């Protein structure tokens, strides 16, 4: 929801970045305030996932210009774990599998690490078990998934639910959901979206990165941005997503090129 005068959580200013010698982001500007849901849409290769990973601190990308402020602090100066503790969360497009470590042990470790940094109470295995069994209902996950290895043998949908479960446990201020809808059947999509909706509050914000409009049938964005060639070329309300779905990305591309030709 758009709340007048709410606090700015994320401020991206003229951000450019490359991987190796290839420039991928070419001057991104984006402001996200508390309470808002933003969606970034765009064709494959437009730089959407790169932006998500850079915000989370992935080591493969080099920021070549611009700045990113998170709650007025320089986000880019923080290590990935410091960003997580400060309240930035990335739900991965491809969550990794870690056989050998039980999901519940991993979730508790992540929860306690973040709690310790925030001055909250850490939970012992029994306390955490009660806590996580409550949270797991949010994503309609069977509790047997807690005893299995982290994401080990999980289906695509189960992995995404596990990501949202982590979001529920870590209570980020800014959650970046990278293609969370990809590989989900309609039931899983509904469950995941429902979970995300329940986690939105006036104090946090969500950045959805998606190729398709269908996730936005379940989660209503306040802003939709279209990314193309490493730039955010168009910003609108939720109706922009429907327009994109109808007209395709070529429409934005053509419009953008026309605008540039005129300038």
């Amino acid at each position, binding site marked *: 929801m758009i709340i007048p005068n709410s606090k700015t959580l994320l401020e991206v200013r003229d951000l450019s970045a490359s991987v190796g010698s290839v420039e991928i982001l070419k001057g991104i500007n984006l402001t996200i305030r508390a309470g808002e849901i933003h969606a970034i849409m765009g064709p494959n290769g437009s730089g959407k996932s790169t932006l998500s990973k850079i915000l989370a601190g992935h*080591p493969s990308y080099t920021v070549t210009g611009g700045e990113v402020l998170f709650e007025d602090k320089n986000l880019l100066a923080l*290590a990935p*774990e410091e960003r*997580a503790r400060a309240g930035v969360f990335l739900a991965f497009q491809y969550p*990794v599998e870690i056989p050998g470590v039980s999901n519940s042990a991993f979730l508790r*470790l992540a929860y306690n*690490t973040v709690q310790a*940094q925030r001055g909250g109470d850490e939970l012992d295995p029994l306390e955490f078990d009660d806590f996580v069994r409550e949270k797991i209902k949010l994503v309609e996950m069977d509790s047997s998934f807690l005893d299995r*290895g982290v994401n080990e043998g999980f289906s695509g949908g189960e992995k995404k639910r596990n990501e949202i479960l982590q979001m529920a446990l870590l209570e980020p201020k800014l959650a970046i959901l990278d293609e969370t809808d990809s590989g989900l059947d309609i039931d899983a999509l509904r469950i995941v979206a429902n979970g995300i909706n329940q986690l939105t509050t006036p104090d946090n914000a969500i950045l959805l990165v998606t190729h398709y409009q269908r996730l936005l049938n379940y989660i209503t964005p306040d802003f939709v941005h279209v990314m193309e060639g490493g730039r955010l070329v168009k910003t609108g309300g939720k109706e922009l997503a429907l327009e994109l779905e109808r007209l395709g990305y070529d429409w934005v591309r053509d419009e953008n090129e026309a605008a540039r030709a005129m300038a």
Partner: protein
Amino acid sequence: MNANTALARGSDLGSLLRATPDSTPQGPGWLNRLRSEAAARAAQLGLPTKRDEEWRYTDLAPLLNYSFEPVRPPPLLALADIERFIIPEAAASRLVFVDGVFAPGLSALDNLPVGLRVTRLAEAWSSHEMIVHAHLSRLVNFQHDVFAALNTRSFSDGALILIGKDQRCPAPVHLLFIATSHDAPVVISPRCLVIAEPGSECTLIEDSVSLGDSVYFNNMVTEIAVAENAQVTHIKLQREADSAFHIAHSGVTLARNGRYHSNTVTVGARLSRFNLSVTQTGEGAECTLNGLALITGQQLADTHSTIVHTQPHGTSRQLHKCIVDGAAHAVFNGKIVVQQNAQLTDAAQSSRNLLLSARARVDTKPQLEIFADDVKCAHGATVGQLDSEEVFYLKSRGLDELAARNLLTYAFAAEVIAKIAVPSVVERLRHVVLEQTQHAS
């Protein structure tokens, strides 16, 4: 090999021969003949060198730095001395050997499950002579293996485990081999024979531990015959002293629809070598071999496995992992042979290795030899550091670099540990793994 070189190589064994005297001729005639034959063969073979293909990566020279002596009568231990090695699940099925000598006071055999017979080998050749004669030295051949020959020449005791037809033993049998401290280096030569009759099932834990840190050489041989429809789960834990030498050979045969599951964990000894040979002699047999070597410092851990499919419809699965830190060196050589008759064999083998330091080394050599044309076989090997994507995933959840790396290293090992079917063993090994994989900053 001409007589001169045989003599020259045999002399390489010097102190090893002295330290493994011919066992006193108390056994039956066939056994004494077998021992003489093994003694002659050991002298002929001599100690292998790195020129020997089977020992290319493992230098046995350190064995020659010591003057080994025969083992002396072991000290009398109390149950309290070995309490930390006791496995609760096997509280009523435990055989303890101290420096290779059966320790009745430490063993627990009074309430064995029905159908399970556990006997000292030294008694078995009178009480079960036929069965011992029929199997001993048949599953581990000493003709090409000097260490098996040395063991056969001199073993004085060990275990005979007999699982009767259609009997299922819910509790594992724990064979605990304890090495004590010695003034001079000694050679210990345990021997085990496991016979699973048709339709039977059992779990065997072979556990090599140490109470001191003196130099000794544990030279073990284990033979396991799995009859039709029988199943043996074999857990081998090698946690010898850091200064010890450990060379073991397990030979397994699987009759029709027989199943053999092996879990091997190697953490101890300065130099260890484990030969595991599984031969599927009947149709539809199945084996899984899971191994973990977790070594550091100057340790060398070598695993050589051979799986031979001789009949159709056999299955084999193998996962071998090494975590190598410090200047340690791991070796894995895994051979799978699919003979011409073994159509529709389904074999998969994976060797995965994690190097935690710049000085750590691993040599891995998966080998497939396929002579049948309708089979499904896959193998692969990876050697490397931790996956950077996995490290990033954990960091994005708040874990710092060190915590992330430690967790992933632990997980790498725990995947193998978790496959062990005895909960208290899993729990204990988890602690061992945790201790060995958690680097401080």
